[in-house]
């Protein structure tokens, strides 16, 4: 019974595929998986838009949308109808094909990233040997579409927003990759299902998730910072801040194309949270060994929703960082700390089992964190500001 609940989607796929001749079965299985991803994650996106607006509203001491259904949960339907029926305005001097292709490429690249996430036991669409590398390759492709969107609009604000967004994304991409490398070092494989399998062990009922180790906690914090910056979420959302740059690189998009950008941003948030849970939070494994009767996909979803809640919480709480502040932060604090985390991970691996490695690794990380934080704070000049422009 427990097994049946856990593998219910896999059984469903096998049952649907068994009606076809054997030659078509692999393709049909893949198509069913793709249809499931394309239907489920946008539906989750619709739910998250309501949760975000209600959540931010409550954090700002107001109600969110509450007209369209009981407690406003049918709001996404109203938003969808609005986006689909709005007039699609394209500026006359905009570069036609590039302007059209930018949101398409964004959404395609982001959907490809979902193909390697293990949503449950045996529930990954493609079990690639280099799965993590594929995910990051797809993430890198989104930067090109951001630039295309900004440049093709022939609008100085869009171009500026696009340049800022791309600079921010490439800076934090390095941090994202390096913090995942420490997980790969310990798990010994780039394939995401194997990384989850390596975390699916329990000692005294407590799980072996990487977040419960010193290097894992530091890596997870760095990964979370980089993930927030990669998806242009607050507090790193200067490229699309409404009060700074109109709407940044998607200023000149209206109607369905804007809805595609919006979809792309939230799907990127979901996908990068999914990767974060796979790498650090144990993917689909349960928190306690005794809770294994609850299906694995339920655990993955709850960890995903927890990450999304933390994203929404950060948006409602923290103020926006200025562009030079966030670039400084990336290159001068987060990146050196991530490199140190790599060294500490290697030390952890080579010190062998026992309590000594916990003490040593935690001590190194905490001391460096505090010292670097103090140094960064002390070098704040509060005099007249000096700028360096690109010519």
């Amino acid at each position, binding site marked *: 019974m427990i097994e049946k609940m856990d593998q219910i989607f896999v059984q469903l796929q096998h049952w649907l595929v068994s009606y076809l001749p054997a030659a078509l079965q692999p393709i049909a299985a893949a198509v069913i998986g793709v249809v499931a991803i394309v239907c489920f994650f946008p539906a989750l996106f619709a739910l998250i838009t309501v949760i975000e607006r209600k959540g931010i509203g409550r954090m700002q001491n107001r109600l969110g949308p509450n007209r369209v259904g009981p407690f406003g949960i049918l709001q996404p339907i109203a938003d969808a109808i609005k986006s689909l029926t709005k007039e699609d305005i394209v500026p006359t001097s905009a570069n036609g094909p590039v302007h059209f292709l930018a949101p398409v490429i964004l959404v395609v690249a982001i959907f490809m990233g979902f193909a390697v996430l293990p949503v449950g036991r045996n529930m990954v669409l493609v079990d690639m040997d280099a799965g993590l590398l594929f995910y990051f*390759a797809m993430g890198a492709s989104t930067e090109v579409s951001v630039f*295309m969107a900004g440049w093709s609009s022939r609008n100085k604000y869009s171009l500026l927003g696009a340049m800022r967004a791309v600079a921010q994304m490439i800076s934090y991409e390095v941090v994202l990759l390096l913090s995942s490398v420490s997980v790969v070092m310990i798990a010994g494989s780039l394939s995401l299902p194997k990384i989850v399998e390596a975390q699916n062990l329990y000692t005294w009922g407590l799980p072996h998730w990487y977040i419960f180790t010193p290097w894992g906690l530091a890596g997870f914090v760095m990964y979370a910072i980089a993930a927030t910056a990669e998806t242009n979420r607050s507090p790193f959302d200067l490229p699309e801040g409404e009060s700074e740059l109109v709407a940044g690189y998607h200023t000149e998009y209206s109607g369905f194309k804007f809805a595609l950008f919006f979809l792309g941003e939230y799907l990127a948030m979901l996908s990068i949270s999914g990767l974060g849970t796979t790498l650090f939070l144990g993917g689909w494994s349960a928190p306690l060994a005794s809770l294994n009767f609850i299906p694995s996909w339920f655990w993955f979803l709850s960890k995903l929703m927890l990450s999304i809640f933390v994203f929404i919480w950060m948006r409602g709480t923290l103020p926006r960082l200025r562009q030079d502040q966030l670039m400084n932060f990336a290159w001068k604090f987060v990146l050196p700390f991530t490199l140190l985390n790599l060294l500490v991970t290697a030390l952890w691996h080579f010190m062998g089992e026992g309590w000594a490695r916990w003490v040593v690794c935690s001590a190194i990380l905490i001391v460096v964190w505090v010292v670097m934080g103090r140094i960064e704070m002390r070098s704040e000049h509060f005099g007249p500001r000096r700028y360096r422009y690109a010519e």
Partner: protein
Amino acid sequence: MSAVFYLIAALTVAGGLAAVLLKNLVHAALAVTVAFGGLALLFLSLDAQFAGFAQILVYIGAVAILIVFAILLTRGSDLPKDGVFSKTWLIGLVIAAAVFSVLGWAVLSSASGLPNESAVPAVNVHDIGVALVGRYVLPLEIVALLLTAATIGAVIVAMHEKDGAQ
């Protein structure tokens, strides 16, 4: 040869041609990005997974962005008055055609002597990792040094010159 190979090869060659023929620089940069993507697909069709994904990550995710930034920083969006092809374009075309004919003749005339193992190599990322720190550790360290030198060099070369007291 399968239809998929012809399709991907046509995409790549079309991207390359567009990159060298288009007048608008940003369009040329986007066309060469398409060529890089087509090449990544060709690598994947040759069962070189790691090289294919590394190609996407490095070339499309970094080199293409670099090219686009350089175009924007040097005001490449304005079209030059004298046209986009240099005065000596005919010689360049003749040389390129000659190089292609020599290479093509070399490939086709030695076609029978080339190896043709068709078994898929059973190489996975673990083997690549072991090889990188085993047999190829010296090139790895030299490339690391080279990348560091290139980073510092690029920053110094492109940095705004400070003239005297600021």
